[in-house]
């Protein structure tokens, strides 16, 4: 197992380097110039020096190398300094956003909590709803609960978040006036009342996201339970007189959870990646919204860094899912 993990970790390095190169080359084609907003009265040589200060004006491979250095060495060092109070990264150039002229990672750190709160809660809520629905619909296959559940998950699977989000805003915020339609990220939870306000503003985005994740997960859970319910070991368990509850919730569930857990792990990068569309609908200024504004403002270092962070998370959680699969299922051996 350890050998497999090490091999995969080593293999993921060239993958990530290649991905970063792909992103870099794609952004290299971008037509924008960060000096376009600078007044025409500024002389050309000053503009050129400003470009160089932003790390432009050098040949492409040099800039790519510099970006790699900044991302993989300077930023981690800076994080190390922040946690332990050392000063390794002092005087080193960090990845700078063209929009705000401040380090990209600082902005990401500001935006991360909002995304994690909304999308993370949605993910947990979705798991908590999806698993029982999947288990019960598989256990009572073709019952009315199963039929209804299958239909609802199919609808949840098909309705895009930019419609379900807008629909719940029309219903709950415009017609009924129960919840605010805009997520207020400056809101601080200090006492019970502000906690209720926070809860109210979180309900709609969380539910819209959870509907989608629930649909995928519970379909998966149901299929996995159905695969296991007819296995011989289930008959054995019943034959030796175990209660129905033990059979389903211990024997079958444990085996059915194996693929579901990996699917859950595979979905985690999307939490950090932010639900770009849902954040846009509810005006949550999280990571997804940051990415959209960065793309619109032609802020290439920001886009490059954010996209690459997403790529790292995807590769990492793919690896974690594979390892989890190997740990949970003794039949699978990576040798």
């Amino acid at each position, binding site marked *: 197992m350890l050998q497999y993990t090490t091999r995969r970790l080593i293999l993921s390095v060239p993958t990530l380097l290649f991905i970063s190169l792909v992103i870099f080359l*794609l952004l290299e084609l*971008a037509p924008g110039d960060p000096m376009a907003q600078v007044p025409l009265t500024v002389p050309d040589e000053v503009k050129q020096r400003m470009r160089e200060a932003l790390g432009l004006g050098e040949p492409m491979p040099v800039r790519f190398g510099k970006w790699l250095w900044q991302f993989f060495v300077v930023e981690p060092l800076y994080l190390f300094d922040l946690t332990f109070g050392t000063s390794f990264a002092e005087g080193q150039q960090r990845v700078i956003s063209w929009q705000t002229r401040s380090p990209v990672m600082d902005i990401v750190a500001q935006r991360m909590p909002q995304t994690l709160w909304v999308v993370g809660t949605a993910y947990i809520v979705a798991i908590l709803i999806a698993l029982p629905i999947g288990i019960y619909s598989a256990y009572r296959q073709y019952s009315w609960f199963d039929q209804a559940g299958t239909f609802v998950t199919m609808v949840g699977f098909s309705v895009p978040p930019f419609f379900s989000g807008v629909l719940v805003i029309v219903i709950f915020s415009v017609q009924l006036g129960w919840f605010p339609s805009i997520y207020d990220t400056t809101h601080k939870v200090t006492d019970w009342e502000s906690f209720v306000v926070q809860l109210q503003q979180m309900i709609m985005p969380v539910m819209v996201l959870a509907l989608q994740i629930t649909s995928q997960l519970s379909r998966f859970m149901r299929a996995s339970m159905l695969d296991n319910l007819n296995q011989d070991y289930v008959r054995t368990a019943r034959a030796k007189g175990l209660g129905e509850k033990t059979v389903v919730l211990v024997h079958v569930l444990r085996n059915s959870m194996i693929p579901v857990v990996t699917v859950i792990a595979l979905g985690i990068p999307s939490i950090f990646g932010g639900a770009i569309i849902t954040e846009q609908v509810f005006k949550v200024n999280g990571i997804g919204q940051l*990415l959209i504004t960065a793309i619109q403002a032609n802020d290439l270092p920001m886009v490059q860094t954010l996209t690459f962070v997403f790529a790292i998370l995807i590769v990492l959680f793919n690896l974690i899912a594979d390892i989890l699969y190997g740990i949970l299922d003794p039949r699978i051996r990576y040798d």
Partner: protein
Amino acid sequence: MTDPHVQSPLVEERAPDPQGVREAENADQPPRSQWWDVWDQFKHHSGAFWGMVVFFTIIFLVVVGPLLYWNDATFVPTGRAFLELRDMRPIYTVLWEVEPKVSWAHPLGTDNLGRDTLARLLSGGQVSIAVGLAAMVVSIVIGTLVGVLAGYIRWLDGPLMRLTDLFLALPLLPLLLVAVLLFRDPLSSALGPEGGTFILIVTLVGITSWMQTARIVRGDVLALKEREFVLAARSIGTSNTRMITRHILPNVLSPIMVSATLGIATAIITESALSFLGFGFPPDFPTWGKLLFDSVDRMVQYPERVIWPGLLISLTVLSVNYIGDGLRDALDPRIRGR
């Protein structure tokens, strides 16, 4: 799960299938092709059947509708007519509102420029569905090509599958947004704003959604390659090209068809999402996602402008997903005939 879906006539005749009994009873009837069996199974899957009815109804309406409907999607009234025709409500608002601004000439109302909503929905649907179908074709062609090559030619397997893994690790939506932004202007100036964006979006959605198809096809091809009928074909001197087109491809057709169906749904959703984020077609060129995006600002006064396009997107995707579900069941010979 990974059993190959055997449909080659060579093997089908000998396979001890569940229909053996039924076929013996109707021995005097002419032989039926397997597609009749698939259709029989498919139409008994009520969700899939109704999904297909809904999907073809939507396509029919969207294609024939603009020819029959009396309003033009691009007509913008000017002068006095503009004030009279703009911001009309749908005809059904009469039921609960006091003297709304409605007219039978514009059954679903008009937008803030006086353009007819129903006409725009119909022509927007043409674009959305066309994008969905075309992107599906692109993605299926790439996916099948990569899958067959990787499964059939041994030395290509490693590189092509690494490429697939690489694509799966890319954060697709951000890259799609970036790519649309980068290539929209050059392509628009080369091929016109509508044609350029259409080709751009179809290509981008196609080359970012072929990976699952490639994986499934490769797995099936790997299993098929070892079967006796391939050996038999090879022993009579079938060339590789003939082998792939005549023996391998027909046998991997069913997973390809299922992914093709589900691919339409993904493509429609992706196109609408791009339009919704403002990275889609040019402003006066309606698609369902674009119509929804344009109306979000006024959804408090005119909720119908948001609800109708959203409903149409959801209904189309839902019906396509149901078709895919039913097709998967109908094409699986182990379930068929139950």
